[in-house]
């Protein structure tokens, strides 16, 4: 930490105990039951209350969580975890292997309707999964899955003696008991969630005494609240970051950070659509996205172009795949060669008397999304393609996309630390089975995806994914656009904030558990 020299009032290397951290929730949690979690906002809170079998460290590598150590059988199908014998739930009851088994059963029980986490545990083999003793659990799978180990980070353990009673889906929405470092004090839906550090926490205690999550939906509101000290951290828009992160007055109060995470933006094209189902059309449309101008003028260099399904920081990324060049003239030539011509002279291409009209769904109210959509719209109009932009509520948009009731959309993915393209590009994952809502089906891609998730040799797996990266870039089932760096501001009283390689400020270990609050904010 370079600023340590300038600060004399607070010793940067001696974290202080206590204090209250005011964190922002951009959307209220949908439930505090970790098995039913649907969004990353749920996880932000649950990460304090519950603990996973393993944590992910700053370099996205597995590290000890509830499990102190683990072994993987030679055939790669059986995982044996040795749980910490000290681990207890916040009600004082010790955590046992049976709680892990209970959580796993709940996760795969169709009645639970566990939405997303279940993805990593589809091949769970209940026949070989068992509690070896009180603190040893063996978890078996029907098939080898190369990124399985990191998926255990998503498995937050719930206590059987509490969660087996009552209605599992509805009784644990606003209350929670887990083995994490904090206990739940209260939740006011739509407003706030208060957490308090457990004095009886079974491993190294975090420094901060209480954590208050405030639901602040509006970005502008959050930014004002941060400056007034009513929040301690918030993501900030690129425009605020560019204009304010060098503001001397503000830097006395706030720290600004910028880093790349595992998320990226893209346009999914509905593969069943008669127009955009053709990969040549998709490529032509991709040529009308001026990524360079977007990155330079809108993000001032704080974003980078995507070329395929893996982000530039990922080991699976293929550096040889080129960015689709911005070339509207070539795009028009391609469309013309496919029979799309402006026969009636109205400025819009047509084929068999049908004009080339497309509709793209976007999330309403998001500034950068609307800017991107209108730029794309304006470039397409120049080559005779009419793009209607339909802003929708996030929930409606997701629903329509998952149901295949769309032509195009502008959305983003948050990748797993160990990427597995299976759920979004394998032909078996076409809805309702998975999230292949682009209806992409290429036998060659299927083969690579299957081989990649079975291959335990890292070098070979990397080669497979690089080949897949090139193949998907060729097929353009998505128009991959950009990876925007995350930009955060936090108050200067919060210390010990560090970035991981891909996870950002929290949800890795120790991450937010290493933060502390300087009781006397020093002048800079």
């Amino acid at each position, binding site marked *: 930490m370079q600023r340590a020299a300038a600060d004399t009032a607070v010793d940067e290397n001696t974290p202080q105990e206590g204090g209250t951290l005011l964190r922002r929730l951009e959307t209220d949690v949908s439930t505090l039951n970790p098995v039913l979690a649907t969004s990353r906002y749920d996880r932000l809170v649950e990460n304090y209350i519950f603990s996973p079998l393993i944590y992910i460290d700053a370099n996205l590598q597995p590290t000890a969580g509830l499990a102190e150590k683990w072994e993987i059988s030679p055939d790669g199908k059986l995982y044996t975890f040795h749980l910490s014998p000290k681990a207890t739930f916040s009600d004082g009851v010790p955590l046992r292997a049976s709680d892990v088994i209970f959580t796993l059963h709940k996760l795969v029980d169709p009645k639970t309707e566990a939405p997303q986490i279940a993805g990593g545990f589809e091949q769970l083999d209940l026949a070989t999964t068992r509690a070896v003793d009180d603190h040893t659990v063996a978890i078996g799978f029907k098939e080898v899955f190369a990124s399985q180990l990191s998926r255990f980070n998503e498995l937050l353990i719930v206590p059987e003696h509490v969660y087996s009673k009552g209605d599992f889906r509805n009784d644990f929405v606003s209350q929670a008991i887990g083995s994490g470092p904090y206990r739940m004090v209260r939740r006011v839906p739509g407003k706030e969630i208060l957490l308090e550090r457990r004095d009886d926490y079974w491993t190294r205690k975090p420094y901060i005494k209480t954590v208050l999550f405030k639901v602040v939906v509006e970005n502008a509101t959050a930014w004002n609240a941060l400056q007034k000290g009513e929040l301690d951290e918030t993501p900030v828009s690129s425009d605020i970051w560019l204009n304010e992160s060098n503001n001397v007055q503000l830097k006395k109060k706030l720290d600004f950070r910028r880093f790349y995470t595992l998320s990226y933006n893209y346009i999914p094209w509905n593969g069943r659509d008669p127009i955009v189902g053709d990969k040549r059309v998709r490529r032509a449309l991709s040529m009308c996205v001026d990524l360079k101008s977007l990155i330079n003028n809108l993000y001032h260099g704080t974003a980078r172009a995507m070329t395929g399904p893996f982000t530039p920081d990922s080991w699976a990324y293929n550096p040889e795949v080129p960015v689709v060049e911005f070339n509207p003239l070539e795009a028009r030539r391609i469309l013309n060669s496919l029979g799309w011509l402006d026969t009636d002279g109205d400025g819009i291409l047509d084929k068999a008397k049908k004009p080339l009209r497309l509709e793209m769904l976007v999330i309403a109210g998001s500034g950068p999304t609307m800017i991107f959509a*209108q730029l794309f719209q304006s470039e397409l109009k120049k080559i005779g393609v009419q793009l*209607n*932009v339909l802003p929708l509520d996030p929930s409606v948009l997701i629903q329509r996309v998952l149901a295949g009731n769309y032509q195009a959309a502008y959305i983003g993915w948050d990748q797993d630390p160990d990427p597995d393209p299976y759920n979004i590009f394998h032909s078996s994952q076409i809805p309702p089975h998975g999230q292949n809502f682009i209806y992409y089906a290429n036998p060659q891609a299927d083969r690579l995806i299957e081989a990649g998730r079975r291959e335990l040799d890292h070098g070979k797996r990397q080669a497979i994914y690089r080949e897949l990266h090139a193949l998907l870039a060729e097929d353009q089932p998505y128009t991959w656009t950009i990876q925007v760096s995350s930009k955060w501001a936090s108050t200067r009283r919060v210390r010990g904030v560090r970035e991981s390689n891909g996870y950002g400020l929290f949800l890795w270990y120790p991450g937010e558990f290493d933060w502390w609050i300087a009781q006397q904010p020093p002048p800079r």
Partner: protein
Amino acid sequence: MKRTDLFAPVWRRFRRSRLAIAALIYIALVSLIALFAPLIATNGTKALVPFAPNDAQLVDRLQPPSVVHRLGTDELGRDILSRMIHGARVSLTIGLTATLISLIVGSLLGALAGYYGGAIDWIVSRLIEIVLCFPFLFLVLGIVALFRPSMTTLMIALGLTSWTTEARFVRGEFLRIRELEFAQAARASGARDVRIIFRHLLPNAFAPVLVAASFGVAAAILTESALSFLGVGVSVPTASWGSILASAEENIDYAWWMVVFPGLAIFLTVAAFNVIGDRFRDALDPRFE
């Protein structure tokens, strides 16, 4: 001839207010600009404002007012002045059409209720009460959300939710004048109901309705701005004053010009329509003589 006689003193009284005349001139000017927007603001050096409203130049985004971009540029580098000129078209069209719809629906229902009374009056009156029960903006939001947001949806939604004022005015006037001598004379001479309503009664009940309509235009423009601000207004890239304001929200700290100019346009136009309505109402009242 009879009608000019009726309106001459009204116009004379109206003319006396200099503010009202200024408002009238302002509205006429804005209407002219809106009418000729495609000629005034378009690509090409000959145009008065040499920028098309939807021409994005990302390099020039968020430029403050200058000689080139007289009212600055927005977050996509589009010329604000050009967008406001084209936005005037949208805002005025929506305001006027929505008011026309509410005028037709309101007058018709009000006339039927006032003329026939009895069961029809009861039904119309209850209908008015039901519509009035809903908070106006939420009702409009609900209708717009049901269909996809477009200019047509907006105009219909606004028109179909704001006819109650007109209906009440017309009903009240009809109750008063349907028993007057000229109405009885028309009836005695064997005129059919349709003729009595439209030829004899409605023209005599129309003055107060026009006052309501003038306020109605102001309200419709304001509501359109509010809806566009909430993101359920006209679809992109079409500009309306409200949608320019909406895109200003995220940049409010750095781009005051995106807030001030469209805000001023909305304020002045709404104020002008209100002034006209207000002075027109006063002019209709002979006691102000």
